[in-house]
């Protein structure tokens, strides 16, 4: 059955992939987010110091006698000391003209807010610059003093690298933990599903009772529909069994009425023409009844062969019981059964099927045996468990022996004997379903032998 079901990606894989993928994305977001935030904070720290330095320089600028005087405070540069010995540059300009400092230091573009910071590459290193301007009154005109202080970013880079490394370790740890958690979560989520599947698989073919074990809330709809389906299946099986029983009852009861009347009338009527009509009627009833019985037997064989209900079956007892059930019928033709059974020949088989098969074989033997003859039935444990039934009838037609087990095939010498030709087919199908064989042969002194091996 399972090869008929198309399977899409497994739930377990899908869940694991989603959880691990999610954990990976989260770890990356964490890594880049924390790094960006750390960079911003570190940069802001450097900018604050640079601005303080610029302000300190600007504060000392005065115009005295139309001349610019700046008392360069020592602290303005010493506050920029770092463990990495970052280099510090400065430039003081009056109305765009360099007064003191490094002339190559880049100028801010356009007019700037009171204080602005930006970065430029300079002499092979990243340079952070802060510029601020201040207007002073010199006589009757204004003059603008611009101070720029710049610092390389070595210390900042070292700090950032350290932070990045820590965040990376942290992210990786988070990821590993999340992967472990996701395996555990997957297993505990899939677990109930597997247990449900197992408990349904382990059932026997006849067990259609609903699943009673508690299941997780999410699986309740699935299990509920499963239970409904099994309920419906059970109902429809019961209904079709009831239907077959009811149908058989409806058909067979009137047949029985007709047959009884025909028999009674046959006793009363003297006219030979009427009598032979009545006999033909009885034969036809028997034939249709036998055919109906064998069709049902055959349907049951086919159905059960797919779901063998194997049990330890005592073949010796089974054959014994069958024969004592058929003895009254055999007696009517003065046929005796000669039973040769080994004690307790036991096989693992579906007893109902085996019984059905052997009953059909003995039925055949009874039909084809002449009056006052013997039917020899033997049960023995050879390589396989063997039931052999030999009669003293006409035997099988030599040319068609192989074809006799085919559905509705009847021997050439079956004329005048009611039957549907399903008896051997049923026995053959039952043997095949149990990996056994059915062999037909003719006894030396005449008579048919059927060997049914399991």
């Amino acid at each position, binding site marked *: 059955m399972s090869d008929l079901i198309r399977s899409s990606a497994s739930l377990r894989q899908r869940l694991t992939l989603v959880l691990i993928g999610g954990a990976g994305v989260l770890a990356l977001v964490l890594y880049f987010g924390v790094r960006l935030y750390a960079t911003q904070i570190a940069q802001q720290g450097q900018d604050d110091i640079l601005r303080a330095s610029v302000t300190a320089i600007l504060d000392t600028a005065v115009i005295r006698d139309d001349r610019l005087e700046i008392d360069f405070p020592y602290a303005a540069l010493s506050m920029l000391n770092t463990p990495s010995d970052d280099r510090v540059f400065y430039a003081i300009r009056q109305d765009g003209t360099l007064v003191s400092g490094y002339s190559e230091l880049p100028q801010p573009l356009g007019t700037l807010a009171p204080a602005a910071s930006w970065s430029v590459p300079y002499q092979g290193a990243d340079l952070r610059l802060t510029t601020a301007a201040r207007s002073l009154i010199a006589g009757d005109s204004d003059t603008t003093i611009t101070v720029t202080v710049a610092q390389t970013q070595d210390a900042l880079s070292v700090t950032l690298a350290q932070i990045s490394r820590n965040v990376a370790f942290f992210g990786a740890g988070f990821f590993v933990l999340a992967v472990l958690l996701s395996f555990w979560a997957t297993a505990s989520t899939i677990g109930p599903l597997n247990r449900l599947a197992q408990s349904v698989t382990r059932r026997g073919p006849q067990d259609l009772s609903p699943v009673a074990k508690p299941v997780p809330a999410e699986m309740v709809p699935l299990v509920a529909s499963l239970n409904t389906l099994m309920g419906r299946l059970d109902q429809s099986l019961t209904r079709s069994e009831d239907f077959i029983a009811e149908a*058989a009852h409806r058909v*067979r009861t009137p*047949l029985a*009425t007709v047959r*009884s*009347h025909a028999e009674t009338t*046959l006793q009363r009527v003297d006219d030979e023409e009427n009598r032979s009509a009545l006999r033909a009627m009885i034969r036809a009833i028997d034939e249709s009844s036998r055919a109906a019985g064998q069709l*049902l037997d055959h349907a049951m064989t086919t159905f059960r062969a797919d779901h063998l209900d194997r049990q330890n079956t005592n073949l010796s007892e089974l054959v014994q019981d069958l024969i004592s059930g058929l003895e*009254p019928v055999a*007696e009517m033709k003065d046929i005796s059964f000669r039973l040769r059974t080994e004690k307790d020949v036991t096989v693992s088989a579906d007893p109902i099927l085996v019984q059905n098969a052997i009953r059909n074989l003995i039925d055949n033997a009874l039909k084809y045996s002449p009056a006052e003859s013997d039917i020899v039935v033997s049960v023995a444990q050879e390589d396989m468990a063997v039931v052999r039934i030999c009669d003293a009838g006409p035997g099988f037609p030599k040319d068609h022996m192989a074809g006799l087990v085919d559905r509705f095939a009847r021997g050439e010498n079956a004329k005048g004997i009611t039957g549907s030709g399903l008896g051997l087919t049923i026995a053959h199908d039952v043997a095949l379903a149990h990996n056994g064989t059915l062999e037909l042969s003719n006894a030396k002194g005449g008579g048919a032998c059927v060997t049914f091996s399991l």
Partner: protein
Amino acid sequence: MKFLLVEDNMELADAILQRLKFDGHVIDHASKMEDAVAFSQVNEYDLILLDIMLPDGDGRDFLEKHRAARNDTPVIVLTARSQVSDRISMLDLGADDYVTKPFDHAELEARCRAVLRRRAGSAQTVTRLGDVTFDPLAGVLTVAGQAVKLRNRELRLLELFINAPGQLFSKQKLVDRLFSYDDDVSDNAVEVYVGRLRKHLEPSSLRIRTSRGLGYSLENE
């Protein structure tokens, strides 16, 4: 013999009644389980013929009640089902045997005989005629103190004759009674069995007379 027939289908019941009465049996008919239980408690029957599907209950319930009441009258189930498992369950419930509808009355008779024989000790149905004793259950004919075991067809033939001494039976009717309708037998086949019976009856006062062209009858001389 005295039968109780439990069958809800009136037409079938009527047909079976006619057939069994024709053979000289006494038979009561119940069409409901309630009646069947009442009948079986009041009267003594040799055998109960029980249909499984009844309007007021399952025949299986009747079997259970029947056995619970320690009534040991044998029960033969008339079933329309042919599934083996169903048959087994009915035998488990205490039915003595079953026949599948539509049934051959000869087979029903054979099964009745087998069931009654199994219940040895129940009333013996021995018939006496002249100096002959005949036990149809055991199939034993006793002539002049000599017991002979009859074959089944001889037995059935003698049963017919001994139940209606003097009555003339045509060959064809005897053929129908002795051979199942399958068999393509000539009327002369019955001569073999008449011949055997004559041999068995030779030391007795009973004779089977041939009326040429008409048939046979049993006469007590």
